[in-house]
């Protein structure tokens, strides 16, 4: 085999290998352990906000006394939203994020407008907001599937 033929074959092999290795599909964003952690912590903070409210008398449950915690959770939701906006293939995530943000904003405004929350209202918000957090967490975990052996 001459050197020319050898080089030509090597080039062809290299070209095919490069073409096939780049021929991968990508329909979802890449999994982020950091985002999973952030979602878990913010969901826990939301849950704890309402658990702590139930622990004190209704008249002490003022918006002012929980304002800081509402703002911290809101900032976390905004941060998660921003990170999702920066990811490719993010359409489904953005809708889940939008629904969560709107629900949290409504809960915060309700407390602010009514200055306190009744026990029933606290329990209902705790359950509903957990319902909004869960799809975001499940969706992030689902991305692990795409990464396992497939990418």
């Amino acid at each position, binding site marked *: 085999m001459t050197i020319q033929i050898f080089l030509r*074959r090597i080039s*062809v*092999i290299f070209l*095919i*290998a490069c073409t*096939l*290795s780049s*021929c*991968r*599909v*990508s*329909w*979802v964003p890449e999994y982020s352990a950091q985002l999973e952690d952030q979602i878990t912590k913010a969901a826990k903070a939301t849950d704890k906000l309402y658990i702590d409210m139930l622990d004190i008398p209704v008249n002490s449950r003022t918006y002012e006394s929980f304002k800081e915690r509402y703002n911290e959770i809101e900032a976390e939701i905004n941060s998660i939203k921003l990170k999702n906006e920066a990811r490719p293939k993010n359409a*489904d*995530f953005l*809708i*889940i994020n939008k*629904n*969560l943000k*709107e*629900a949290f904003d*409504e809960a915060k405004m309700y407390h602010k407008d009514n200055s306190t929350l*009744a*026990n*029933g*209202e606290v*329990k*209902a918000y705790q*359950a*509903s907001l*957990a*319902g*909004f957090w*869960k*799809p*975001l967490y*499940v*969706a992030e975990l*689902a*991305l*692990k*599937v*795409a990464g*396992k*052996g*497939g*990418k």
Partner: protein
Amino acid sequence: MAFDINETVAQMLGAVKTTVKDNWSMVKETANTFLQTRKDRLELLASLRLSDEISQKFFLKRVADEKKILESELHAVAILTKAIAQKAANAALDVLSKAVAKAIPF
């Protein structure tokens, strides 16, 4: 080694089937979990309303939330199915890549 397209396509199909089969239970389990937590939530909301712990207006707002939660859940399931499809497609492409590499004479 000769490149057998029929054999390769059959192997690609096998890779897709195995990947989907191995992960399909996740879709079912996720949908069931969403369904169960919805049931628990609706039970709680109904009991809070029946015991007059929340007003009718507040109750209806939380029921409206359920529509949005369902929308989010469906998008989460869509992400899961897309992730499974992506893994299956890439497994099939790996089979093709290996078959072509084997068939190239050195």
